[in-house]
Structure formats: C-alpha cells, structure tokens
C-alpha cells in the first residue's frame, strides 16, 4: 500500500476519523484506523461498533493495499508535520512508514484481517433525505440539548427522526423537557428512527466549511450521514419512542412575547440565587405589563427582575433555570413567545415568527 497526499488533507481526514477510535480495551484493533487503497480510491475507516467514520481521501498517487495503524498516534504525528509538505505513507506487512521531507517514522500497525466488517446501507431500500448543512447543524443543535443520558431508558438517549403530516421532524426529550424541530416539509417517504445522540455529535463535529449538503439515508436498523468525502454510519437505537406529540400542549391561557436576550439575562441573574434550590426560579405575569423572574436562596438572599411586556392574564409558574437557559440559547429569533397555564401544564417556548421549533419544559412543583 502506498499513498501520497498533502499534510492538510491527511491531517483533516485523520482528525475526523481518529476521534472515535479510542478506549475499547476488549478489542485493541478498534484503536486503529484502517487505510485501504482500492483502484486509486483511498479510504480511512474507524469504528467503535456503535458507529463508524469513513473518509474518502483524494490523493495524488497511490498503490493498492490495506493496513491498520493506531489512529491517535498517526493523527498526532501527522498534525505535527509542517504544513504544505507532501506526505508519503507506505506499508510493508504491518510496518507503516510515513515520510515527509526530512521527517520519517515507522509505526507498527496490525493486519487488516481482524478489523471488523462494517454494515452497509442497502441503497435500494433506503429512505434518503437531503438537507442544507447550516439548516442541519442548527436543527440538530436545537434538539440535541434535550436528550437524556440515562442509559436505563435507551430511547431517550437519541434524537427521534419521524415523519407525520408529510413533514420530517426531529425530536428529543429527557422526560423533563422536550424539543421538536420540523426539518423538511412535503416529504413523501416515511421514517421512524432513533439516532444515538453521540453519533449525531460526531456528525456535527465532522462538518466543515466546504460542505454544503448533508445526505441522510435510513435503513431499518442503520443510518448513514454523507457529508462531502465523509461518511458516518451509525446503529439506530432499537426501542420505541414515546408518543411525544401528546406532551405538547394545544392551548395556553397565558401567552407573552419576550425579548430573548433580555430573558436570558434575567434568567442568568435569577439562576445565581437559585443554585441552592436546584435552579428553581419563578416566572410570574402581572397585568397589564409586567413579567417577573424571581429566585430565593435562603442563605444568600433573593433576586427579582422585571421585563415589560403586554400581559393579558396574571399567572405564575416554577421552572428549572438551567432548562430555560438551554432553550433560550438554541432559539434563533430576537423575539420569542413564552406560554403557560398553571403549575402542572408544561411551559411552551417558540420563536415569534417561525413556527418550526417547539421547546417545552415541565414546571417544578412550587
């Protein structure tokens, strides 16, 4: 096996694939990256058996062959080589030699035979969506905050891709809050799949400036994200997702429009005092024009902040300040709506104009 490639290209590819090649003590070969050259096509592959990252590397010249090398070591070595140089990687049996100008090193690799075979998307049966990269990145970011890391409820550790009313929506919930984003309108095919949050995070990290579009292909138990030269395949979480749409309240008694930045600021202020009571703050409306955010900490003191806005009905609700901040942080528009009805019904947050994003937070017992 032999490839010639510039430092920049190789460095980028290796940093994409090497992130997941860590920590499996049971099967050491999973710490390695598989380098395969087949008819001038070069691919770098890593997997942790929940997902795999494949980078198709454009190279100036190559000879066929296959080998595996410790991914972290190779990535760090290459990243420290001078930029702009051409790097030549060649292998003889399991010895891998990397040469670049004055630098040269030999790394002990391992035979590719033990490297696991990866599942492949069945293109014929796959449900495929394409979406602009910015839209994708934003939307995933908006819902992934609400995923749970409670491994006893595997369904909630992922983001739920589902179609209803000809819309592809993504949703996540940890039982205390829920975020939903309508991703694509007027879709024909149907899908219901839970993608692990960890895999999506890896997809987000792999996005770089030169990528314009993300292609998502679903099989029954597998998903593939294609971003330019990178492919990320991941298992789907095999569990049934709760019928989350029932949780979104239909009508609320109290609705106010608030400036997002201002609400963020007063929530942060209130959160300072709310630390000792688990971040619990009180939001209160008073006619005709007062929205209050309060918090009380017995030992430190208390905090009251006021925002002026049109209020039609008085009311009060307790909620977790961290959840509110998380939500405000991922919303886009300067003006948002804040709706609630009483202590038990969830709080609903939306952008004022755009109706695609919904975030709900369960109130705390007062």
């Amino acid at each position, binding site marked *: 096996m032999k490839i010639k490639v510039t430092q920049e290209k190789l460095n980028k590819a290796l940093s994409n694939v090497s992130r997941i090649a860590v920590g499996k003590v049971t099967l050491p070969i999973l710490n390695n990256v598989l380098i395969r050259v087949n008819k001038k096509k070069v691919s770098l592959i890593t997997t942790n*058996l929940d997902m795999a990252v494949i980078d198709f590397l454009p190279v100036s010249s190559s000879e066929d062959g296959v080998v595996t090398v410790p991914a972290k070591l190779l990535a760090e070595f290459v990243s420290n080589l001078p930029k702009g140089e051409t790097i030549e990687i060649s292998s003889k049996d399991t010895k891998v030699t990397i040469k670049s100008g004055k630098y040269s090193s030999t790394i002990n690799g391992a035979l590719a035979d033990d490297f696991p*075979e990866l*599942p492949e998307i069945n293109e014929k049966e796959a449900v495929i969506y394409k979406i602009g990269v910015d839209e994708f990145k934003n939307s995933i970011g908006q819902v992934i905050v609400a995923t749970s890391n409670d491994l006893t409820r*595997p369904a909630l550790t992922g983001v739920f891709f589902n179609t209803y009313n000809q819309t592809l929506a993504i949703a996540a919930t940890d039982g205390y809050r829920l975020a939903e984003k309508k991703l694509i309108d007027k879709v024909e095919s149907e899908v219901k799949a839970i993608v692990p949050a960890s895999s999506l995070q890896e997809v987000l990290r792999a996005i770089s400036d030169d990528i314009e579009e993300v292609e998502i292909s679903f099989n029954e*138990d*597998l998903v593939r994200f294609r971003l330019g030269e990178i492919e990320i395949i991941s*298992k*789907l979480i095999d569990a049934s997702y709760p019928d989350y749409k029932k949780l979104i309240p239909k009508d609320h008694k109290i609705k106010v429009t608030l400036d997002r930045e201002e609400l963020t600021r007063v929530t942060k202020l209130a959160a300072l005092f709310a630390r000792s009571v688990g971040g619990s703050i009180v939001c209160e409306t008073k006619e005709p024009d007062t929205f209050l955010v309060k918090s009380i900490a017995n030992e430190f003191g208390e905090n009251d902040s006021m925002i002026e806005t049109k209020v039609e009905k008085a009311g009060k609700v307790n909620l977790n300040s961290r959840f509110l901040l998380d939500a405000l942080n991922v919303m886009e528009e300067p003006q948002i709506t804040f709706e609630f009805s009483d202590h038990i019904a969830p709080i609903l947050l939306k952008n004022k104009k755009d109706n695609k994003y919904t975030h709900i937070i369960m109130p705390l017992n007062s």
Partner: protein
Amino acid sequence: MYDVWKNALAEIEQKISPANFSTWFQDTSLISTKNGNVRIGVKNTFFVKQLRNRYLDIIKTALENNNVVINTIDFEVQTSSKVKPRSREITKTDIDLKSHVKNYAKTLKTESSRQTGLNKKYTLDSFVVGSNNDLAVSVAKSIIDSPGSRYNPFFLYGGPGLGKTHLVQAIGNELLRRNPNFKIFYTPIAHFYSDFIDAIQNGKGREFSRKFEKLDCLIIDDFQFIVGKEKSQEEFFNIFNDLYQLNKQIIVTSDRLPSQIKTVDERLATRLTWAGAFDLQLPKFEDKCAILKAKAELMGAEIEDEAIEYLAENVNTNIRDLEGELSSLLVMSEVRGLTPLELIENGSIYVNKTSKLRPTSPKQVVEKVAKFYNLPVKEMCGKSRVAHIKNARQVAMFLLSKELSLSTNKIASEVGVKDHTTVMHGIKKIEKDLKLNFTLRDEIESIKEKIYG
C-alpha cells in the same frame, strides 16, 4: 434452548481469541431454532455483518455439535429492553418460592418490644460471620456469656450497613433469652436525647436518669449523632458512669471512633474505648457470598451460585445494599417467572454499586502521608532509619497497597525503598500494629479522610 446456546458459546470460545469472543459473542442470544431456521439475537447492526462473514462457519459447527438442525441462520438486532420475559409454567417450586418470600416479608415486619426497644428479628444465628467481623462477633459472644465484665463498655464501629445494629441487638436478644429477668434497653442516640428533652420539659429529669440506673444492659446505637447535643451528652456521661460503676454492660455503636466525632467530650471519648474499640469492616468476596447464601436460605428462595457471585462481585458498598439487591432480584424473579441467573443473563437486572471514594494517584497518597506526619516527601521517601520517619514510610506503603492495590514492586519505587521485600515487611508491620495500636488506627483513618475528602 438457552443451554444449547451456552454450550455452543463455550465451544466457540475455544476457537477464537478472547478479545474477539467477548466483543462479538457476549451479548448474543439464541431466539429460536424452529424448522431449522436458526435466529440469533445480536446487540446492534454492526454485529450482523461481522458475525455472518467471519464467524458463520464456527457458529454452524458449534450448533450442529449440539444437535441443532440448521437450514438457515439469521441474525436479528435485539436490545435488552426488547427481550421479552419468556413465559414459564408455574411449577411447584415456584409456588413454594412465592409463599416463602411472602412469609419472610411477614417476619420482617418489626416485632420490636416496647420495653426493651429490641427487634426480635436480629439474632446471632442470622449474623453471618466472616473475616470482616469475626473479632467483633467473638467479643459479642463473650459478653453474652458474662455481661458487664471484660468487654465493658463494648464500643463497636463501622460504616453504614455493615451490621452494627444487627450485632448489638442480637446481643440484647440473646442476653434476654438466657436471663428473662434482665433489664435491657436499646435506643438510638437520637431517641435518647429527644426523650431526655421531653423529660426535662415535663420536669421529670430525675425520673429519666433513674430509669437508666436500674438497667442491667444499655445499648446505644448511632452514637455519632450526639454531635452538638451538649446537655444530652452530659446526661449520658452521668448515666454511663453510674452503670459502669455497678458493672452493668454498656454497648455503644458509632460509624467512627469517638475521638473522631468532633464535639464529643474527651473524658467521654476515652471512657468509651476503655475496653477497646471493635470494628466491622467491608466484607470480602467470600464473605459476601456467604451472606447472600444465608440470606437467601432465610427467605426460602432458590438462587444459583453464579447469581450470588455476580451480586457479590458487583455490590461493593455495604451489606445493606447487598441484601437490598438480593431481595429486589428475588422479587423480580418471582414476578417475571425467571430464575435469578436468567434475569442477570438476559440483562433485565444490572447491578453496579461501588464505593463512592474517588480514585487517587500514588503520588497524592505519598504526599498526604508526608504532610500528615510533617515530613518533606524527600525525607520520608529516603533511607532514614529514624523511627518516626520509618513509620511514616511504612504507613505510606500500607495505604498504597490497601487503597490503590499497587504491587509491592511499584510501591517500592513510589516510596524509594530498595525492593519489594522491604515493602512487604512494612505492610505486615503496620497490619500487626493496627490490631493493638489505636493511635495508629486513628492516624490512618484521618489520612484516609484527607486523601478522599
């Protein structure tokens, strides 16, 4: 079907490397073999292709050797949450088990007597003796034979859930059984001082102390909660002195030594440990197995040895947690109609209780020890034969070995001694000293607190 797959796995295990076996076969199961259509459950889709392309032949041979007829082999993704409990005929043993568990629940309902405060369910017979508690138990037995003599007061300490309450109540119950006229009173310290305050408020302070003066044996539980209750402490001190003068047995439990409880009067602290302080330690693996077996037997439940070993290995906090996990496992097994081992193997039960102590680095341990003894690290880890420096070095060796389970060679390099034999000698010496030397024990406890705190 379950056994067939187990046998097949045993065969496969011998043919491939352990790393490959544990990665690819650990979470597999045999779903069905109907009409020669073998269906194998796997963890996720990444396993399907690997098993099919690399291991199909091995699986096939292994199954055929177990007399399975094979037409096709299919792999299905099957996560543990999806595993449905297999229905099982309720056989006679199941019914027995059910009623046993119920009966046991009944006996668990506390039968504490108003007069003595003792709960009859705690007996010496049900206290499992192991290397972690044999000393305390033998002292308990000698108290039962001759109360108020050699081991008076009996001060018992140890972490939560290690059996302090059980042991002292068992002493009380046994004393009462042998001498029905014995006046015994068991009370947690919290009740002691709330009763005391009530008595004072009702102007019956005198009566309160008289009640204690007539006792033959006083058992005080959870003494550490005395913190900050100075008046009660004084009252207790007086009662203690009175009873002690009359050679009446006093038994006190606490989660730490009296000298480590901050606001305890020094006079009281020394008196409490006059006859020595005895500790209950965390049980070792074998002890835990014995405890679980005894407990299961008491409940009349059947549980496989493998299941017991699984629990013993995975619960590392204390005996209370151990028993808690055992009973939840048994209840689950009753509800689901599976044996405990089947529950564990199909992943319905996941136990992992480890102590919350932060892991720490050898360097930190060495530094903390040196700081505690006011020595520079360099001096402590040097060649000095001066007694107190040598002692500090040995304490460091001891802690490195017990807390971090380092090898003696590694320890030798950490504390700068010549070789592992010196380390072995040092650890042995501290272990020996610990049995007799209470100051040393205190010192080590407070170093531990510093390391983990």
